[in-house]
């Protein structure tokens, strides 16, 4: 990242803000965080990947139990089955009803078999959509916890349309007329993560990653050797600081010293703080606004050039954020 370029852009934004009185404080904060983000070696990055996959990290249901006063898990897609790898339900958060959704890993082998290690099938994504639309109907915000290596790559998964189920969620979640806030709490694995990742605001816990392909998968393709995963991980730029810098996520939720697994309650408390802060902001908006902003946000993602200009369209997202109605 060219720091001079970033500094220059910050100055531009500040003068813009003075002239037009638009609020760009969060954008400036984001840019400044990039400046203090030092260079990491592939080994440093790999340590983060291992932390993200640590089997003792708090799971979706554990986080919910920490932060919600009351929670009722709701099951089933009303068509085929109930997927234990993707759970959801209604909870109270400081007295306010919210709908929670999240990938669910097990704590031990037996649980993991039942939970399919957090690899969801189509019925999981369809349940998520059903519950999200139920939340929308009754004006409840939707909070999602992303923690999956990916959607399950299996025969049954293909037969029942894992692609269709994720695709439908991408479209339908974009249109929800209620706040949606997403947290990557462990592994953010590709389409399986994105299937519950279309939020007005998306956050990552400090020791997590979010990637189009697993480091191992990437290494197999790049080096024909999955053991080169650390190098691949470094190439993929999949850490929270990377994604914050790219404008893909909206913030990083700090973890306790040593990582989320060392103190579940404190990790959950940090998440709760962020939810409440985000809700304060999002609940001021109408359902229409929330849907339009969410769509606009994702419509603006991507980096490319258009012929006739020498600049990459690097600040397209920032630009869009400032123009949001």
């Amino acid at each position, binding site marked *: 990242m060219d720091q001079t370029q970033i500094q220059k852009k910050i100055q531009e934004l500040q003068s813009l803000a003075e002239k037009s009185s638009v609020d760009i404080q969060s954008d400036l904060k984001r840019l400044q965080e990039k400046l203090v983000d030092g260079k990491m070696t592939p080994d440093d990055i790999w340590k983060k990947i291992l932390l993200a996959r640590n089997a003792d990290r708090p799971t979706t249901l554990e986080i919910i139990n920490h932060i919600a006063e009351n929670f009722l898990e709701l099951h089933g897609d009303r068509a085929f089955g109930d997927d234990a790898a993707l759970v959801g339900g209604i909870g109270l958060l400081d007295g306010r009803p919210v709908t929670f959704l999240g990938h669910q890993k097990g704590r031990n082998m037996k649980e993991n078999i039942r939970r399919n290690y957090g690899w969801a099938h189509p019925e999981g994504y369809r349940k998520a959509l059903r519950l999200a639309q139920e939340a929308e109907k009754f004006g409840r915000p939707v909070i999602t916890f992303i923690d999956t290596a990916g959607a399950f790559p299996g025969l049954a998964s*293909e037969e029942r349309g894992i692609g269709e189920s994720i695709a439908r969620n991408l479209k339908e979640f974009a249109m929800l007329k209620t706040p949606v806030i997403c947290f990557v709490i462990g592994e953010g694995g590709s389409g399986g993560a994105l299937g519950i990742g279309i939020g007005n605001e998306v956050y990552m816990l400090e020791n997590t990653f979010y990637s189009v392909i697993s480091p191992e998968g990437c290494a197999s393709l790049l080096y024909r050797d999955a053991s080169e995963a650390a190098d691949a991980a470094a190439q993929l730029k999949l850490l929270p600081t990377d994604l914050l810098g790219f404008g893909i996520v909206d913030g990083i939720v700090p973890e306790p010293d040593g990582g989320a697994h060392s103190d579940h309650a404190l990790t959950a408390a940090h998440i709760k703080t962020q939810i409440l802060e985000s809700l304060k902001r999002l609940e001021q908006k109408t359902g229409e606004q929330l849907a339009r902003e969410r769509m606009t946000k994702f419509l603006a993602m991507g980096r490319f*050039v258009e012929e006739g200009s020498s600049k990459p369209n690097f600040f397209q997202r920032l630009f869009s954020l400032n123009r949001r109605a």
Partner: protein
Amino acid sequence: MALFTGVIDRLLGRQQPLPRDIAFKDERSFVAQKHSCPSCHAHLEAGELENNLYVCPKCGHHFRINTAERVRTLVDAGSFQEFNQEIQSINPLGFPGYEAKLGESKAATGQGEAVVNGYASIEGRKVILSIMNFKFMGGSMGSVAGEKLTRAILEGAEKRHPVILFTTSGGMRMQEGIFSLMQMAKSSAAIAQLELAQVPLFVVLTDPTYGGVTASFAMLGDVILAEPAASIGFAGPRIIESTIRQKLPEGFQKSEFLLEKGFVDAIVPRSELRRTLAFLIDTHPTE
């Protein structure tokens, strides 16, 4: 200024650059070559194939075709007018070797990217086309593919012309990392806009269509057609076999399998595609 000509400008109602009247560069796959049908092993002349829409006259096997061939076999002669050609890939992660791979694909296909957008007419009906080419880095979808698909879809919403997407892809483009993943969300959000505008989206799945493409716009058509015997899936067969540790059934992930499983509205041979799309356009009025 190019920075400000993206999706956002469209949403904000700003002027877009006019489409450029550039003839589509014709780089045929089948020029001056002899072919053996991979299905029935018949020996075929390139001319014979071209005259038969690149379908084996002996067994009906549908050869993979490139964008030029798709355009020529589909739309009214002379009606295709490319747009968004000026959008080009960068290397946002500084991924090693990415520029070289882009260069190879550009040279091999004569295209700037894996997706080509165009205005065209099909039996006199105006449509917006967005066509993927597997020969361009395996039809992988990065920021440019996502942007082009998105603009084609929003162009359809604005002009109220039906949008037709031809898919073929190995999945998302690893070299663009998270930007590539987000193209799934982006193209799907564009389809949400199209849906709100009540303008139809027709998807034609062609061989092969995999990964993030199958988990986004490919499955979001109002009507989803597939060419016969195309391979279509989310995870590839090898990944699945290594997961479930057993052989996959005969015909797995073929068009006919997807039809049986409920994900494809109809399998349409290439020779029927024009007529079928014309019928769908007529029965999905946008006025």
